[in-house]
């Protein structure tokens, strides 16, 4: 299917809206807010024809756009989506709207800049998911750091400068070696298109180095243990909107990169080094789950919980090789991949919602400490009900989206090795423990102090965004079929690519 420029529009509309918002300035803050909201809603509206026009039955890229960009580098402005990128683009467009609404009155300084940064960020993130040219991908990938750097740095907490510099430099350090790997691949393949990279035969030694360069970039972004340390700092210091985007979408780019770059470009190295990724994922699930248990700060707790949940994404993606070794076919592996992608979408919704919930409480009491709260549900019943729902989803309750992804991945890892499944399964205990304990201490019990007693329940705006997220979490949890069908053909295609060795036959 030929594109109608829809993807370009999805990328550049929010960026143009962001620049316009920036130009309005703080003196016309009211107008800037409305412009930002309308732009984000329009962008979300544009995803409707994208979703309706998407053909589930094929793995080939759709809505293609290809314009020569830099002929000297054989790089095109090439866009397209398949069943792996579409859910993430939908998620990006969906999550930006609540972020804009959540900042409506809370942000009091440099209002226009705040909304502009999020809109520009949205365009760049959609660009990352839609790029079919690896140079264009890298272009969006790095450019995205700039608005987030600004968001954490200007509107963040007391240690915001430390956190944002750590965030920027950590991810930049991870990505530069990926750039070297991409240039190396370009010199071998002759152009920067992803398709050329995926077809390029590579020796095992080359694949190993390229795999490690990619892994560093993507593992920092996911983030995987042990390169996760930037995330708790960034989350704690970021404003609510920044945390939401960071958790809901930016982390997914690491998982997306592994699926789009690592697996198809270096399948043999992935097969050889899958123990590394599986090991790191299991450590993330178990160890980081335990770390989350002892957190005193709500945002930090959800940040560690994110790392543990993202462990399922990497586990599901890299378990395929061992399933093949054990069962002799890749048929069972599809659950792992499906689970990984569902988990990305679901975690995007749930962690985003939890950060919004924390933001709601922070706006009233100005503390993120768990000990500053207690008995919130007595004064905020509507809020309490929604937060309990998100907490249950975060601990993987059946009927919520959190269950689907984790269940599929655990199912797949059972096929590979009982102990993988057993270790991954600890999340059902640990996840429930840290999330529900958080809920118990914050929401239930006696009203802890005067601050809590004076908390007002959700206003209309807050209720609207949390309710919308709750509906999304429930829909995916109760009826995941549309989401799974959307990605099925692409996942099968990816498994076929992974199954074929790229080592040149001498």
């Amino acid at each position: 299917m030929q594109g109608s420029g829809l993807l370009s529009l999805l990328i550049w509309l929010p960026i143009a809206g962001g620049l316009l918002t920036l130009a309005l300035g703080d003196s016309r803050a009211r107008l800037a807010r409305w412009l930002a909201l309308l732009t984000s809603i329009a962008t979300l509206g544009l995803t409707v024809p994208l979703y309706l026009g998407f053909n589930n039955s094929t793995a080939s890229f759709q809505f293609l756009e290809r314009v020569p960009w830099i002929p000297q580098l054989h790089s095109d402005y090439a866009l397209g989506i398949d069943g792996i990128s579409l859910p993430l683009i939908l998620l990006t467009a969906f999550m930006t709207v609540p972020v804009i609404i959540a900042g409506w009155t809370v942000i009091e300084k440099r209002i226009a800049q705040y909304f502009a940064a999020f809109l520009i960020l949205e365009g760049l993130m959609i660009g990352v998911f839609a790029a079919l040219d690896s140079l264009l991908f890298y272009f969006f990938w790095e450019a995205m750091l700039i608005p987030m750097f600004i968001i954490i740095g200007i509107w963040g907490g007391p240690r915001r400068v430390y956190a944002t510099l750590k965030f920027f430099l950590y991810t930049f350090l991870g990505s530069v070696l990926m750039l070297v790997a991409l240039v190396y691949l370009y010199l071998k393949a002759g152009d920067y298109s992803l398709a050329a990279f995926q077809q390029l035969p590579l020796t095992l030694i080359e694949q190993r180095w390229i795999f490690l360069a990619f892994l560093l970039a993507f593992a920092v972004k996911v983030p995987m243990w042990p390169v996760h340390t930037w995330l708790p700092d960034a989350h704690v210091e970021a404003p609510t909107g920044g945390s939401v985007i960071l958790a809901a979408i930016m982390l997914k780019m690491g998982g997306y990169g592994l699926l789009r770059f690592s697996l198809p470009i270096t399948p043999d190295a992935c097969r050889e080094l899958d123990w590394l990724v599986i090991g790191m994922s299991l450590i993330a699930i178990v160890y980081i789950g335990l770390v989350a248990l002892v957190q005193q700060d709500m945002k930090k707790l959800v940040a560690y919980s994110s790392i543990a949940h993202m462990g399922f994404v990497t586990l599901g993606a890299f378990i395929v090789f061992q399933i093949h070794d054990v069962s002799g076919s890749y048929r069972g592996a599809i659950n792992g991949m499906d689970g990984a992608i569902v988990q990305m979408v679901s975690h995007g919704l749930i962690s985003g919602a939890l950060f919004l919930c924390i933001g709601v409480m922070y706006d009233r009491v100005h503390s993120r400490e768990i000990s500053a709260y207690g008995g919130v549900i007595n004064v905020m019943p509507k809020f309490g009900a929604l937060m309990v729902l998100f907490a249950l989803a975060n601990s993987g309750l059946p009927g919520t989206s959190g269950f689907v992804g984790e269940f599929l991945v655990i199912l797949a890892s059972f096929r590979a090795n009982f102990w993988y499944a057993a270790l991954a399964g600890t999340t059902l205990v640990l996840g429930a423990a840290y999330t529900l304990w958080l809920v118990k201490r914050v929401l239930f019990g006696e009203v802890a102090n005067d601050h809590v007693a004076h908390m007002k329940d959700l206003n209309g705006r807050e209720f609207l965004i949390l309710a919308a997220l709750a509906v999304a979490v429930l829909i995916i949890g109760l009826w995941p079929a549309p989401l799974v069908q959307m990605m099925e053909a692409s996942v099968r295609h990816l498994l076929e690519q992974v199954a074929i060795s790229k080592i040149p036959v001498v």
Partner: protein
Amino acid sequence: MPVATMSFASILPAIPEMALAVAICLILLLDVYGGAGKRGLTATATLVALAVTAWLTFRYGEVEQRTVLFNGLYVADRLGVFLKLASMLSVGVSLFYSQAYLQRRSIVGGEYYVLALTTLLGICVLISANSLLTIYLGVELLSLSLYAMVAFDRDSGIAAESAIKYFVLGAIASGALLYGMSMLYGMSGTLDLDRLAATATTAGAGYIIGIAFVIVGVAFKFGAVPFHMWVPDVYQGAPTSVTLFVATAPKLAAFAFAFRLLSHGLGHDTLVWTQMLTGISVLSLVLGNVVAIAQTSIKRMLAYSAIGNVGFILLGFSTGQAAGYRAALIYTLVYVLTVLGSFGVVMLAARVGSEADEISDYKGLATRDPLLALMMLFLMLSTAGIPPFAGFWAKLWIIQSLLNSGMVGLASTAVLLSVVGAFYYLRVIWYMYFEPAAPGSSVDTQFGARFALTLNALAVLALGLLPNALFALCNGLID
């Protein structure tokens, strides 16, 4: 060699240099007779002279193919024309940015403009040099003018000190360069770069020593480690307008210097000098990027940043291949464009009684002057090599040329050090955006300079989004 008959037509490509020399004399006279009351006239006349010279370069310098004039002393080619135009633009923009700065510090003097033009003349001579002698002539004309410019603010002790340092070190480097050239002449029997290039290589000890000394000269002009000692002191000590001047157009000259002498004249001995340059560039990258972190003065920080960036430029040369030289050319152009803007901001942010040369002077610039801060943000991110700014492509080309020559380790080292470098560019953004504004500080409003500066920074963004025209141009210049 046949004795060339000097007809007017045969010296046409050198018309711009001659016109520039005449213009220098006229402006000097104009300034003397115009007196102190009409300093504005000198500045305007200088900009007009620049425009005329640029037009002449464009009109007469345009050559179909490489032409050699004056018995092989002078070469006219498309690369030369382009570099001259770029230098003139750079000089013009620097002078335009500095007008208000100079007036405010009452260090106006007609000699300032004359010295700027003689520097430019030196740059043009160097760009068109096709003989060891012409190279030396260009280098000296350029350097002597710069020494005087650095010392221009004669009431400033620190400026005088840095000028003396610059002069003494520069004199030593010139000596080394001359000594190396004499060795090369002794071994090959020619001063002509074309004939030097055609000489079959013997790579004897004499050659290697000669090349080593010549490299000292090149590295000094670039300001690369271990011949970088002058860079921080001169950048910090000189008036900001002079720092801007030293940091921009002479870098184009240094590129031409390295290209004419090493890539062309010593093109058969690449193995010898690429190894030396590799060492120099890695040392520059490490020292420039690491030491810049510790700086509190923005001028000094940009000086160390210059050392680090020169490391990247020389990495392009160290491949010893046309692709690497092209990458170095792109890098130099982008770097000069970015530095023009960066020091332009430093000058605009400077107020009476404050040089704005501490990084902490930039605290809260985003609230005091959002436009200036945004432009500085663009420029800093571009220098750090982050897309969507032009600096990203410059770095990409260098990395690509390195990988093309199989130097994966060197490419990885370079990108990792650029992460270290990113920190101190981000620190400027941090001070501008994340810190509250210091009370009672305001920024000058000079409409012309601000407008030019905005264009300058937007050009960095535009070249980042659509760089293909620049690439096509540079690829056509070096084959």
